[in-house]
């Protein structure tokens, strides 16, 4: 059974449908990216996967999401917290507002579940280690930089020991250095943790994920590996050929792009070279 199963999900906040008949699943330990432009519905899908939707008022909703076969609505708060954790785009919005130090912020979640103190300390120590926050423990969470706040929020999520972690554009607005620092952190996450990384750009996602879902106007346009993603016509249309070329560069740096084939700055030339190469490799 899949860890998370999205079953024929359709959803609309108001008159315009945001998700149209989306079906996909997330396996335990899988590293998955959901990609799409603005308005593609990926943030909404991310929230459904994390159990943050449905909430409040909305116009229409069909289908749903189950976690290990059980619908979100059936799970109690503690089980929900231990299933899927969510980290959003704006760093300051992810802070609880309850803790005066980074240490307390990470311990906030486990404390809420009334876990015994020794266990909380173990969980917190592990999360701090993974996210490299040891030197920041006594700091006010609101005084950290955006990058540090996101790492802290990921640590806080890890302290809940979830089965899956959903991140919605976590490096939006970051400078390249902070983005790379966060991506380096992602590599240290536990192997058995499923990761769902949602983004509007290709580059970061390719560093994290091995499976890619392309969302286009609320529908899944592609669901598969990197090669197929880059070769898909909608990918170039949505993200632009330069982005596809840049992604190919990263792929090359990872050793997958064939040697001797130049990466040109001319998008048309890149496209012409790219497609047959990808078809060949695939």
């Amino acid at each position, binding site marked *: 059974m899949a860890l998370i199963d999205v079953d024929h999900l359709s959803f609309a*906040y108001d008159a315009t449908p945001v998700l149209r008949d989306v079906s996909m699943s997330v396996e335990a330990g899988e590293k998955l990216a959901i990609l799409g432009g603005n308005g593609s519905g990926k943030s909404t899908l991310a929230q459904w996967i994390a159990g943050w939707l449905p909430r*409040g*008022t909305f116009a229409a909703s069909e289908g749903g999401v189950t976690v290990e076969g059980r619908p979100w609505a059936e799970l109690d708060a503690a089980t929900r917290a231990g299933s899927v954790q969510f980290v959003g785009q704006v760093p300051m919005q992810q802070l609880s*507002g309850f803790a005066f130090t980074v240490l307390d912020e990470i311990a906030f979640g486990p404390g809420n579940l009334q876990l015994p103190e020794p266990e909380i300390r173990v969980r917190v120590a592990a999360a701090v280690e993974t996210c490299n926050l040891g030197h920041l423990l006594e700091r006010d969470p609101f005084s950290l930089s955006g990058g540090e706040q996101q790492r802290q929020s990921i640590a806080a999520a890890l302290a809940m020991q979830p089965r899956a972690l959903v991140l919605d554009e976590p490096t939006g607005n970051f400078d390249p250095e902070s983005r790379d620092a966060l991506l380096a952190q992602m590599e240290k996450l536990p192997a058995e943790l499923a990761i769902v990384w949602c983004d509007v750009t290709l580059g970061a996602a390719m560093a994290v994920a091995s499976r890619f879902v392309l969302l286009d106007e609320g529908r899944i346009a592609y669901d598969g590996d990197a090669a197929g993603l880059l070769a898909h016509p909608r990918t170039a249309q949505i993200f632009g050929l330069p982005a596809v070329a840049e992604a190919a560069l990263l792929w090359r740096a990872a050793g997958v792009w064939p040697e001797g084939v130049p990466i040109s700055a001319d998008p048309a030339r890149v496209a012409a070279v790219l497609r047959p190469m990808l078809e060949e490799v695939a």
Partner: protein
Amino acid sequence: MKLDTKSLVLMAVAIVINVVVGQIAVWIKLPLYVDAVGTVLVGILAGPFAGALTGVLTNLIWGLISDPVAAAFFPVSLVIGALAGILARMGWFKSVGMTIAAGAVIGVISTIVAVPIIVYMFGGVTGAGTDFATAYLLAVGQELVQSVAIANLVQNLADKILTCLIAWLIVKRLPMRFTSGFAFYGYSKA
């Protein structure tokens, strides 16, 4: 009475709004305090209990960060929040005219609550501008309680009417996605 998480977050944000809007009023040298915008907001969106609690906690926090003695006026803030919720329930925040009336009612009643505190705890003075008015009224022959009441009433009326208007303006501009999450707001929808 259990409030949901969203109401708690609203209250926390409203307390910050109380303090910061009051700070902005100081920046532009407004002769009014305008430090209860958030409290009224909570009353309109979440009801009298949440509004009253927001007021009380604002004073408590004010006592922690700035002036412990000012915290003694928590009954006034309590009443402002409660009244905002009660009047909202009665539909007084549907139109601008009724909002001004609500501000007047809150101004009068909050003064009535404040006067005993000022007279019995502080001897009738506040250490602020209204003391001049109080002194003047005493000099022309009024009794102490009446002087304090009249002196503070004028300022309070202006303050609370402005506060309610600002809160009304804010709420009118909030997107429906936001307000639909606060059922109590239904009483104020035109």
